[in-house]
């Protein structure tokens, strides 16, 4: 089978889910302003919102990251992908699992696992895909032609190993008979937080560790910092699930442990971010400004730093009293997955697709339009969610404000949220159009030396 065919298929499919998933996000935001929109069974808020989160997380981001790793790993390890056929099979099964799961959610069969709502048997199919992915990752590493494993490989392996346990705990152990109440909640939040922390973080950081030095043509700033980042994150991230229940009905000591580890996450994040900024700093100015790839990587790193400073901050008990359960939380989740890791993944798509198909990017100008529109739209989008979250939190402190009054005060903020969200969707459509035209060969041929 042709080189990179699995990577190509995964990336193409992910772009479809990106457009669809974001559109559903806009529908969700519209429902907060005009609840009568789509007010019928399969478009009900609870279902559409859930398909939105699952679609952008697993249909787009996970799928794009898997595709990018299939592109990156063979290139770092100076070998081919262990098996393209297995990769194609995995891509096919993954899309069957996702589509089936989304239909399951829409028809009222979701599990009570946030981010893991895909019902049986589709979550079992996801596990099968993960095993196939693991075989390909480890197989490729085993047949490598280089001696030392680069940081990207560490994170890829980490993601494969950690996700196995995280996914099984959240989707299967938590559903066993006898696992009930707050004990179940604890297992599910272990999954929810680590879905972001030990699936999307290592996959995204793995891609960035390859893309930043490569696209800037500059060596990585510090090998030692990458060691610190990797080993500290693998120890600390896993403890933080209980910070979703601060001041809630779970053991006080467990909350405290989760808060302390949430704070210690600053160490690996600052190590990684310093490493990335250091590499940017050492690169020549033209390289930093050359097209959308380095810009997306830089902005993604800035958002990564912000979201990871925000996380520990909101885990402080007294801050949590204000911001927990408000729109702030939504802003935090979006900044990590849309701000940091989707920016990285889009940079990856811009980098990988021309090299896979041997065609130039259709339009550098459109790529810049995409970058600037998305950056300028995400800033008010995140900003308004935090601002409205803080306002909401303070309004709730006073029991004199009825809940309905606080909802009325939120209306203008929900409006800004929807309109800035619509701009983000517009920028993403520019992105997808650019990639489609590239695939059609409208950018012309790429010189073979740069693949």
């Amino acid at each position, binding site marked *: 089978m042709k080189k990179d065919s699995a990577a190509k298929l995964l990336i193409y499919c992910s772009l479809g889910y990106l457009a669809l998933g974001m559109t559903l996000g806009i529908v969700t935001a519209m429902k907060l302003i005009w609840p009568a929109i789509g007010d019928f069974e399969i478009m009900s808020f609870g279902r559409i919102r859930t398909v939105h989160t699952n679609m952008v997380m697993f249909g787009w981001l996970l799928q794009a990251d898997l595709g990018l790793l299939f592109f990156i790993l063979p290139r770092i390890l100076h070998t081919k992908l262990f098996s393209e056929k297995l990769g194609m099979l995995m891509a096919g099964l993954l899309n069957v699992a996702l589509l089936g799961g989304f239909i399951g959610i829409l028809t009222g069969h979701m599990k009570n696992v946030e981010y893991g709502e895909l019902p049986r048997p589709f979550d079992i199919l996801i596990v099968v895909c993960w095993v196939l992915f693991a075989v390909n990752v480890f197989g490729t590493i085993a047949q490598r032609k280089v001696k030392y494993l680069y940081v990207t490989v560490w994170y890829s392996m980490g993601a494969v190993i950690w996700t196995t346990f995280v996914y099984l705990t959240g989707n299967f152990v938590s559903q066993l008979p006898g696992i009930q109440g707050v004990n179940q909640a604890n297992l599910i939040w272990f999954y929810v937080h680590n879905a972001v922390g030990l699936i999307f973080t290592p996959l995204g950081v793995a891609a960035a560790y390859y893309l930043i030095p490569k696209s800037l043509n500059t060596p990585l700033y510090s090998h030692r910092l990458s060691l610190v980042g990797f080993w500290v994150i693998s120890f600390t991230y896993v403890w933080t699930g209980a910070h979703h229940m601060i001041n809630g009905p779970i053991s006080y000591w467990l909350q405290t442990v989760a808060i302390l580890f949430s704070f210690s996450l600053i160490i690996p994040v600052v190590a990684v971010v310093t490493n990335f900024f250091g590499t940017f700093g050492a690169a020549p100015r033209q390289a930093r400004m050359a097209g959308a790839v380095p810009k997306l990587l830089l902005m993604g790193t800035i958002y990564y730093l912000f979201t990871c400073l925000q996380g520990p901050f909101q885990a402080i008990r007294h801050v949590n009293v204000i911001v927990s359960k408000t729109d702030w939380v939504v802003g935090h989740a979006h900044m990590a997955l849309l701000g940091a890791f989707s920016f990285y993944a889009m940079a990856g798509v811009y980098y990988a697709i021309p090299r896979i198909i041997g065609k130039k990017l259709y339009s550098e100008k459109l790529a810049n339009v995409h970058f600037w529109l998305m950056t300028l739209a995400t800033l008010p989008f995140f900003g308004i969610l935090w601002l409205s979250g803080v306002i909401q939190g303070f309004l709730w402190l006073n*029991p004199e404000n009825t809940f309905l009054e606080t909802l009325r005060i939120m209306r203008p903020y929900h409006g800004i949220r929807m309109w800035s969200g619509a701009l983000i969707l517009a920028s993403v459509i520019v992105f997808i159009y650019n990639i489609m035209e590239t695939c059609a060969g409208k950018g012309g041929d790429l010189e073979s030396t740069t693949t």
Partner: protein
Amino acid sequence: MKKFAVEKNMLLLALGALAVFSIGGIGSTLIPPLVDKSLVTSTSDKPVHQYTEQEQRGIEIYKAEGCVYCHTQQIRDMVSDQKRYGWRLVDAAVSESWEYTQDKYHFLGTKRTGPDLARVGGKYSNQWHWAHFKDPRNMGEKFRSSRGPYESSSVMPSFKYLTDEEIKDLTAYLQTLGRNKNWRVDSNDRPLNDYED
């Protein structure tokens, strides 16, 4: 720069990453229920409510509709939660882990687009819930007084598409919420259920 053995040995790296991860994995999932019995069994002398078949059907609907994404079920250890979700000048009791031990599915939630439901049981009549599920912004003649603010501000979806039986099941479940603690009692310690049918 010195390189470590773990950087060239795939197996060593994999085992290392797994070992470092599993300390926290075990510490944050297996240890808590062993240390704190109240996560898994009732530590109160009061029995925890056992759901009837009808209430269990209601729980399945609550799950399928994704109610948890807008409604939390936890009165946190905060005066503002206790006051807001109290009733008739009585503060709502803080939620404790043993109250949830009979819940096959947890619905603690992370986001309050709507109000918390941990202590909603008994606060509103079944007819009110019926009217509210049918159309949260227009509950008809009987609940006219609340129409204004609901009409202008409520963003809850309507659940017209549920069958009458399903709405009854869901309501039966909602009426159980928060009853494991007798937080509303009269001077003779009898539970106050003044809003039930």
